[in-house]
């Protein structure tokens, strides 16, 4: 009733702090000790198959349509200023720098993050994780770490596929349908896009997003209440928290990378 009751506020703050600390501890465990799970690559491979191969279709199709739309909108705007040759540059830069990593990460959170959370939440609800602990098997190493590393490996590849397919989509709309000169389209693009500054930073971004989305999904699953409502709430929170984190981090990373 009285939300401003000091003891309530203190409790809320403490529980939030405890959540943060728990998350940080889990992150450290995943990064430091989880790296040894890369030696048992079979587990990671299965997860790459699950996270990557099954996300490929949605990523590729979304990338194609984003490229189409960028081609159309960019053409209509650039044409007013008589510089529709710069369409290739516009499409490639916006995809490689921003849209590729961000939209791929948002799709990845929706497509793969939710299933990670639900899977681990249900494992927890079914007391499978406790059973593993009883057998002296560390569930963080056996269950969480392979999924974490699989997500980190998968995300940059998916973002690259998204950007590449998007550039092809822009080519289809701009050159094949609207009649921008193909030489100018590719030439302006190659002049303006730098390998390390643009493509490289895009890969760094998607790597960070992969880390974020997979970690949020795992944390929400691992900390979910072991009930049907708890798992459903954790799945929702995964999408919300991961999307917000991706968009916020994107701003920070952009400000750091392209400041000069």
């Amino acid at each position, binding site marked *: 009733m009285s939300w401003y009751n000091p003891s309530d506020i203190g409790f809320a703050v403490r529980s939030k702090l405890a959540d943060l600390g728990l998350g940080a501890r889990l992150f450290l465990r995943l990064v430091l000790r989880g790296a040894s799970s890369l030696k048992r690559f079979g587990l990671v491979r299965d997860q*790459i198959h699950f996270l990557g191969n099954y996300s490929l279709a949605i990523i590729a199709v979304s990338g194609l349509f984003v490229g189409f739309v960028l081609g159309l909108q960019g053409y209509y705007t650039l044409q007013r200023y008589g510089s529709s040759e710069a369409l290739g540059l516009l499409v490639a830069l916006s995809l490689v720098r921003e849209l590729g990593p961000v939209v791929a990460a948002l799709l990845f959170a929706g497509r793969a993050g939710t299933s990670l959370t639900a899977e681990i939440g249900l494992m927890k609800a079914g007391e499978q994780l406790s059973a593993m602990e009883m057998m002296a098997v560390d569930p963080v190493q056996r269950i969480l770490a392979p999924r974490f590393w699989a997500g980190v490996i998968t995300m940059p590849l998916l973002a690259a596929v998204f*950007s*590449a397919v998007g*550039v092809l989509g822009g080519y289809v709309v701009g050159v094949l349908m609207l009649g921008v000169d193909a030489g100018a389209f590719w030439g302006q*693009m190659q002049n303006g896009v730098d*390998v390390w500054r643009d*493509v490289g930073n895009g890969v760094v971004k998607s790597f960070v997003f992969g880390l974020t989305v997979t970690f949020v999904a795992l944390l929400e699953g691992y900390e979910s209440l072991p009930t049907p409502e708890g798992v459903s709430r954790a799945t929702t929170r995964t999408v919300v928290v991961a999307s917000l984190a991706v968009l916020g981090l994107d701003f920070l990373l952009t400000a750091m990378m392209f400041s000069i």
Partner: protein
Amino acid sequence: MQRSNKDIWVGLFVLIGAAALLFLALQSANLLSLNFQRTYQVTARFDNIGGLKPQTAVKSAGVVVGRVDSITFDDKNFQASVTLALQSRYSFPKDSSLKILTSGLLGEQYIGIEAGAEEKNLQAGDVITATQSAVVLENLIGQFLYSKAAEGGSPPANANKK
């Protein structure tokens, strides 16, 4: 190590991702034209470089022969000192001159290098002082207004005499 059917699919996925990265690097960025050719560095002094940036092209007769390496301000003679990395396979006479030009009306700026007549060629570390600065639109308008005012200043003076 045991092989499973998933290996093939995961391998295919990684291959597609690598191909996408390669496509981005080669087709939409400039990895191939990123010259791994050897270059030699020459410094040029400009009074005003306008909107010149590092990595700007240096062109001779319209062909890219090098890039701008770095731009610094020299507070001894208050000029910009621009370091150019010219490709080793091209050599230019020692008295070549540089101009800052603009491609098209609104295009980006580049440095044009015009060959001189000297027998000796530019060496690494040479300084070029025969340069022409970037055209600054404000100065141009200022000069135009000034000359207009000088022309048009006399008729009112005559009218006063009447």
